[in-house]
């Protein structure tokens, strides 16, 4: 008896979305099968990795994650250049955390200046994330969109409370939106519908399902992503056929397990943090991630090797 590969009948395809502009622009999406199921479909674009850059020096990072960036933490432009030049980032993810009204509350105009400088300093695509405060992000990301007219940034997180303001900016100044919903497939779909109704073209939307870290809810994100891909590829759910972006680095490195020191039980601190980040990334790739926002260069190297092996 010869073994016949049991194949899945796919009826849908993930939309292709171009990020950035110029020769280093990146296309993501385009899958016609479950992740890495290359025996029955295509993954025309390799999943990509963005390296995080912060607008303010972090004060609570694990030693291992700070070490690669210690010389640049005070300067987002130098940080972005190092991430691109030394660590080979596919993209930069500028985290404008200092704008948080519950934190430093940096004014939007000042943060917009930072975003503009960072975006101008590198030729790879740039993701600009607000602090997650819906009101502040509405103002901030609209200004960033205008200041970086035509650069095709990814701006996020865009949530149901602020999609209109940020969406209008993305349409006017040609940027891509990271549509963020709280680990729920129906809410993700709903937001994509709203963005469509607002007039945001399909080629300017990626989905951010909200990422839970290893031990801190990754199973919820994992299953929402698998359901998303199942609906998109086998049930013709057109409003879920978007590339997926996962912001995972910060979720890992803030845990006490990533910050704990060397011990016989928890092993080497640096390796443990790297592996927690890389394992999380690997699980998210298997669930359908197209873009991973990560922190540690060694974790990124490992994940890239796995992507290459899975597509070999």
């Amino acid at each position: 008896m010869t073994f016949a590969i049991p194949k899945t009948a796919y009826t849908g395809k993930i939309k292709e979305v171009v990020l950035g502009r110029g020769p280093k622009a990146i296309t993501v999406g385009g899958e016609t099968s479950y992740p890495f199921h290359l025996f029955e479909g295509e993954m025309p674009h390799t999943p990509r990795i963005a390296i995080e850059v912060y607008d303010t020096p972090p004060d609570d990072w694990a030693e291992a994650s700070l070490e690669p960036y210690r010389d640049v933490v005070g300067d987002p432009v130098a940080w972005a250049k190092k991430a691109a030049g030394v660590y080979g980032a596919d993209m930069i993810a500028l985290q404008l955390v200092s704008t948080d009204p519950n934190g430093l509350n940096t004014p939007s105009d000042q943060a917009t200046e930072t975003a503009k400088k960072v975006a101008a300093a590198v030729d790879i695509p740039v993701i600009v994330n607000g602090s997650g405060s819906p009101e502040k992000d509405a103002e901030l990301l609209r200004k960033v969109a205008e200041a970086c007219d035509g650069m095709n940034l990814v701006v996020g997180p865009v949530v149901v409370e602020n999609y209109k303001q940020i969406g209008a900016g993305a349409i006017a100044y040609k940027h891509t939106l990271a549509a963020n919903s709280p680990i729920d497939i129906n809410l993700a779909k709903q937001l994509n519908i709203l963005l469509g109704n607002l007039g945001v073209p399909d080629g300017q939307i990626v989905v951010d399902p909200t990422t839970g870290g290893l031990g801190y809810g990754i199973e919820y994100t994992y299953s929402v992503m698998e359901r998303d891909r199942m609906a998109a590829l086998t049930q013709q759910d057109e409003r879920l056929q978007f590339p997926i972006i996962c912001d995972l680095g910060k979720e890992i490195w803030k845990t006490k397990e990533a910050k704990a020191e060397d011990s016989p039980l928890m092993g080497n601190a640096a390796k443990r943090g790297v592996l927690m980040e890389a394992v999380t990334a690997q699980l998210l790739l298997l669930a359908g991630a197209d873009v991973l926002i990560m922190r540690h260069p060694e974790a990124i190297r490992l994940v890239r090797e796995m992507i290459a092996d899975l597509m070999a």
Partner: protein
Amino acid sequence: MALTGIQIFKLLPKTNCGECGVPTCLAFAMNLAAAKAELASCPYISAESKAQLSEASAPPIRPVAIGTGDNVVKIGGETVLFRHEKTFVNKPGLAVMISDAMTDDEVNGRIKRFKELRYDWIGLVLRPEMIAVKNESGDAGRYETLVKKVMDETDAALILMSDSAEALKAALQVSAQRVPLIYAAAEGNAEAMAGLAKEYKCPLAAKADNMDSLAALTDKISAAGVKDIVLDSGARTVRRVFEDQVFVRRAALVQKNRSLGFPTIAFPCEMTKDPMKETLIAATLIAKYAGIIVLSDFQGESLFPLLVSRLNIYTDPQRPMMMQQGIYPVGNPTEDSPVLITTNFALTYFIVSGEIEASRVPSWLLVMDTEGLSVLTAWAAGKFVGDAIGQFVKKSGITEKVKHRKIVIPGFVAAVSGDLEEELGSEWEVKIGPREAAHLAPFLKQGL
């Protein structure tokens, strides 16, 4: 694959004697099909029909048990391709490889770490279960001694790895009562290996070079009378191992292929020399369907993320993970430290306690039993409301831990503060915390 009532009816005596408790054979058949009756209730069914029926009602992926006692490793028995469709049930066994060609130090280090690397995690103990003992020395006596040592020093479920039936026989004589997995029957030695598996009543791994020959091999082993089989397709590259796991799972569940309806074993230890990468390969196999994962070594930095991955992927998506109700100290709180309250959904607890920890303000966290619902859902369900919270706070014993009478409630349930103050009495002051846990640090740092 399930039979219909009519298919089952054809295999029954059709005498309608009624002894099974229902008046007709047809009614009994319908009950069987709906899993509302046991085959054993009919005393007249022929042996041949019985065999056919139990064959047809067997699970699509055979459950296989390796080891004994508290540390028995059950693998297989899975019924879905994606965990959200129902749940994954039997976590893959994690094994460390120990060879009789290793030095004493290498062996002893692995045994020590196998025994010591255990992690407390939300009321569970996460630990590895298995040791693969490999015969590379070519010396049956040396192998037997090592198997005996591992048996004596650990409770590990064993995998006995050798090409030599003679060495395996020697090892089985000292370890059969531990029910080890014999690795492996291949094309050339299937009869001898199946003979050992039958003689010592142990499960047997089948190793082939591709899916075709794997199915043929398991047919041969099954025909020889071995029922508990574990599959190794022989793939040792990342892409092929991944694909073969998917093929086996789909063949069993979708194609109902009995020849491949068994759990699998995979060897990240043979796929790379980089322990970091080995960990990522293992993580891939946890998510995608391996039954046993054999690693070259256990170290805290890599085993911990793998054990947590395994727990997360194998958590039942329909049942929330819950914390025990009670008082949880975060940092080293004193009688002046703040008191906060949240629900017992494990994720809520993790996030809230993590943010409190990050704030470096030692605090008391009261965790209330809301049947695993998050704050908003529990509030909507009427379980996390003023009087219920108040009663819990009063009997929690927190007044013996702190001097003050202030309690912080999540911002999302600000509406319950009136009822709560009423329930607690006038000496208490209810403070409204932030809506998002992420904002706890600045909230706590500014003082209450």
